[in-house]
């Protein structure tokens, strides 16, 4: 019974982590320099989920196994006057579609809610079990 809360919490943590990754993607949609001021366009990140198992088919929730950095996820933007522009006048900018990120964010938020609902139900069940003593 108590394990059920752990499982739902793992789901909430995973979705929150995913939300942080999405927020980072949106925040850095126009970032083309790294923290040392060098030309290095921000690469889109994605949270990778995997189920946690305790063996014998007993599930223990979900975890973020990797924050994947998507290599080469840039697109060329024509900015001839930009200091980092190449000979043809193009600058590599992050290939981030904020609409896609928003939709992923909504999905993460709904999945988070589903886990909250499961945790709420588990909590009520625990309260029922504890009332056996009363």
């Amino acid at each position, binding site marked *: 019974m108590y394990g059920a809360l752990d499982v739902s919490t*793992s789901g909430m943590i995973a979705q929150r982590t995913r939300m942080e990754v999405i927020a980072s993607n949106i925040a850095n949609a126009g970032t083309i320099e790294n923290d040392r001021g060098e030309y290095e366009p921000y690469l889109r990140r994605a949270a990778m*989920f995997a*189920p946690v198992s305790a063996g*014998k088919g*007993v*599930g223990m929730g979900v975890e973020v196994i990797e924050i994947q950095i998507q290599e080469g996820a840039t697109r060329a933007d024509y900015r001839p006057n930009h200091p980092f522009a190449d000979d043809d006048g193009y600058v590599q900018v992050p290939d981030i579609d904020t609409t896609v990120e928003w939709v992923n964010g909504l999905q993460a938020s709904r*999945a988070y809610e589903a886990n909250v609902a499961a945790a709420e139900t588990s909590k009520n*069940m625990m309260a029922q*079990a504890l009332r*056996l003593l009363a």
Partner: protein
Amino acid sequence: MLIGDLTTSGAMPAAEMLLKFAGQRQKIIAHNMANIDTPNFQPKNVDPKGFQKMLGDAIDLRRKKTGGAFGVLEWKETREIRRVGRFGGAGMDFELRPTTSGGGILHHDRNDRDLERMMQEMVENATAYRVAADLLRTQRSQLRNAIAQRVV
């Protein structure tokens, strides 16, 4: 009825088993819910019909043996409900091995989740748990009243 039969009288063992079953099944449902966005994850659950049949058979057997008013439930393992502990036929502890697939449509990430069905399972499971807890509570207060020799 001996004092040892206090905890095995009436519906108590059946209610206890239902409570344990629903408690463990809640964890499985929570696991499926936690992995709602996990690629390649295909939710597995325990079929409550199998449990009901197992419990029904055990209650029938007890009725045949003792008349039904008291006695331990001698239940048989199924594919998804495995015995744990050392009390042989009388042991009440079991663990669930989910193998039944929800059978939803496969999404692009090879996950065949079905949120509505999961929610329905969870509500039904919580209701079953509440029924079992209420039954146990009633049985217990009846026992207490009987011991205190009073009528409510």
